[in-house]
């Protein structure tokens, strides 16, 4: 056959070198990490979508309550106690303006509370902030304005509902105008 004897494979002692093994491990771990990252980002996206849809249900429900109210009784109770007091997150919101804020709601109805914590359909807690301000729109709709608008304009109540995370940032934000001819 040949002049060099064929070494039986099972008794050969030359394996992989440390460098080769480490390279293989690095390649393997990059692959595994990519898989894990794909899973975890999928999970985070799913969780976020769940929270946003639950927050939307709460915001819709709060706005529905305002639709049911009389124009005159769309207001906030700004001295309703510690649980619903206006904190820095509330007053720091873009929709907040101390001069335009419509106050005077006496009851403990959900529409009167500037800040409240509600349980969403998914069982999680959500902070729901409501803002009411006068806004001026063109047209003829007002009968009893409580705020002055320039000529040719009429006041409406601008309701903003914000459902936010406990750690800051909004899940969802809704806004709607209410005029004095609807809901008297």
């Amino acid at each position, binding site marked *: 056959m*040949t*002049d*060099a004897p*064929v070494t*039986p*494979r*099972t008794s050969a002692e030359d394996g992989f070198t440390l460098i080769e093994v480490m390279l293989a491990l690095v390649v393997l771990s990059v692959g595994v990490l990519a898989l894990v990252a794909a899973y975890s980002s999928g999970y985070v996206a*799913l969780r976020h979508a769940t929270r946003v*849809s639950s927050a939307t*249900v709460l915001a*819709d*429900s709060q706005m*529905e*309550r305002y*639709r*049911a*109210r*009389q124009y*005159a*009784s769309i207001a906030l109770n700004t001295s309703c106690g510690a649980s619903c007091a206006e904190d820095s997150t509330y007053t720091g919101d873009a929709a907040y303006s101390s001069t335009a804020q419509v106050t005077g709601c006496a*009851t403990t*109805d959900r*529409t009167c509370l500037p800040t409240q914590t509600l*349980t969403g*359909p*998914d*069982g999680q807690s959500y902070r729901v902030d409501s803002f009411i301000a006068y806004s001026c729109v063109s047209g003829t709709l007002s009968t009893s304005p409580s705020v002055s608008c320039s000529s040719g304009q009429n006041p409406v109540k601008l309701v903003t509902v914000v459902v936010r995370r406990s750690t800051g940032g909004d899940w969802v934000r809704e806004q709607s105008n209410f005029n004095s001819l609807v*809901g*008297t």
Partner: protein
Amino acid sequence: MGSRFRRARARAAAESGFSLVELLIAMFILLLVVTSLTAVLVGASHAQLDADTRFQAQLTDRTGLDKIRREIHCATAVTDTNGNSLTAGTAYTAITVTLPGACPTASGGVTTYSTWCTSASTLTTGDYALYRVTSTALPRPTCGTAGKVKWDDYLQTSTPFCLPSSGVACSGVLKPTSSLPLLHVTLPVNLTGPAAVSGSYNLVDDIALRNGARS
């Protein structure tokens, strides 16, 4: 150089393969790996199916509520299926919404009676399904009327509708003063049955009867 070349040629020409024992061990290891991979795949596929069904149940729940909301906003009356006013604080299995012909969901532009009712689920024992059935003539339809369409399933309650007054509450909800009448609608869904402690999706809303009087 020469010896390395010779050795390589020798190896290429060698006919000795793997022994039976080596093959058996390799196949056994392969079997272990494939089995565990299959288990992972089957588990993932079950989880995917469960998540998908859950997502669909919650989606149809929200769609159903939206449909009810749009009909009630347009309705001229919300009664029981006999046309009587709803008793405040009482939970109903069925309500009939009277839709004038101009409403988008009225059939053929004429006054339509649209009944929303629950009956036993066909998917899970102990659960309920929400149906909508319409008629353009009296008597008002019920869940027994032919042609009902299912809007929601896996419901955990058979009585989703309740009308609160300013004195009588529905699940703690009172009608505020100076407000339109509100219909309290509760649509809790859970895929794992009424006894389940987790996985609940409790969709609740108070829908304003916009053609009612504010009082």
